[in-house]
């Protein structure tokens, strides 16, 4: 049963490879990920800028505890529609004018915030 003695090591190596692979290719899901998130009490603030098809800070997952609110300030260099899935919020974006969305986490899950023209994912909100 030599093979079985080596098994735990093989498992560890594989698990490391798998997790290493993910964390190098994507933001760590454990932290709130997105740069620029400022927390004050139960309110988090994040400013997002859209230039053409580039989203700054780069799209990431923002953790939002149940009952907390994310204040999302979005400024785009073109007219667009802003849509927060699952929060059922849709707002018109005017070129250069900051638009604020207040998103309160009610149901656990992962929700995308996106624009429609062009279709861009700005971030996902992980409510838990």
């Amino acid at each position, binding site marked *: 049963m030599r*093979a079985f003695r080596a098994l735990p090591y093989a*498992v560890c190596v594989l698990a490391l490879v798998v997790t290493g692979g*993910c964390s190098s290719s994507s933001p760590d*899901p454990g932290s709130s990920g997105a740069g620029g998130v400022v927390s004050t009490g139960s309110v988090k603030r994040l400013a997002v800028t859209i230039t053409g098809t580039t989203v700054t800070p780069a799209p990431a*997952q923002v953790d939002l505890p149940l009952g907390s609110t994310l204040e999302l300030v979005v400024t785009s260099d073109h007219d667009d529609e802003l849509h927060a899935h*699952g929060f059922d919020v849709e707002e018109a974006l005017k070129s250069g004018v900051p638009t604020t969305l207040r998103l309160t986490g009610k149901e656990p*899950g992962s929700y995308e915030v996106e624009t429609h023209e*062009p*279709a861009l994912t700005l971030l*996902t909100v992980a409510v838990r």
Partner: protein
Amino acid sequence: MALTAPQLAPGLIPGLAPGLVPAHGVGSRGDLPLPFTALVIAAVAALVISFVAIGTLWREPRLRDTDGVLLPRPVAALLDSRSLRAVARALAAVLTVWTLVALVLGPDSARNPVPHVVYVWLWVGLAFSSMLLGPVWRVINPVRALHAGLLRLARVSPDLAALPYRWGLWPAALGLGTFTWVELVAENNTSLGFLQLLVGGFFAVSLLGSAVFGRTWFDHADPFEAWSRLLGLLSPLGRRHDGRWVLRTPLHGVNGLRGQRGLVPTVAVMLGGTAYDGFSANLSWSTFVQTSPVSSSLLKTATLLTFFGLVAVTIWLASVVSVRLSGEPFARSFTFVSDIAPSLIPIAGGYVVAHYWSLWVYQGQYAWRLLTDPLGTGADLLGTAGLVPNDALIQPTLVATIQAVSIVVGHLLGVLAAHERAITVLDRRAAVVGQVPLMVVMILYTLGGLTILFAP
């Protein structure tokens, strides 16, 4: 599920800016990433299962079509009864007509129930009900019923066909691939015009196909019948060799499927499509797509096709190594890959449960709110307008557990099915070595599936 069109829950939009048309869609809620602990436990379980399996499993073919626990006579009689089938068919027909009315006369907005019926009830719901009850679509398929009805009206044999059919599951693979593309890549896939084209096209192709090739068309070429039949193999309900109803393991159903034309591409589409769905929810991927100079539809289409191709190529490469290890000629790999393709069905089933559980539970209920008002007139014909989907079954811990368990159980069943098939079709001494490449591929699929669920 990542439908591409703007998605909104209707009727809950107080802050909707004037001038913005309410958008369409299903599934605005996604699952939280799989917790790291669940990922590790599931991955370790899959690896241990595979290693133990190689060393300790049975050495003689073991699954027989005489196995199974006979159902009590009254239950079997009920399952076989004409009236049960007639009721199921009638309900399916009513739902079809109801949906077609909404498709033709309903509003082009998020209040229209058609996207939920097509993408949630038909696609995901059919998968879940088939895994539970068997190939139900064969019984209730409204297009099959329409074809049979037309032939009866014309007073001709139900077996009327102009040409013999000989493409196996290939058309089903194409159909499933197309539907997956529509669901995951096509733009505006929940707009009414798009859905009219989709449903109209499907009816036209089905009626044409069945007119030329007879009802065999539905047995082999219809994508939803293939989806339901293949996933239905996993059902604990089945028929023994003598046609009597039994309770049996999912392995018996899978083992009963013989290699046939087009089975490998069909399974590749089933597995690859679900994997792409999970993968495309990854934020790094969407960032890459939206900042890439290449058109995003093109990029997504190419990636989806790559996922289909990866599954087909990896399973074929594994079977090449298998037949070489067991000292058989290279050409044998083409029949062997078809022989072992059924053992990927449990893995595909596990992926489906893991990816669509919460969508099915939540949006499946939500569909009732929309169906009650098919024309968007504010009617409440079914009394379900105020239905609030029950969220007890989509609590994050429960969802993560279901995801990890379904992937691991799919892997376990896949390994067992491949083992049984390997010792059946390969030379006995070679079978143990011969199944190792398959197991490696299955481990890759399972770890890949888990990673996809884990990466945000």
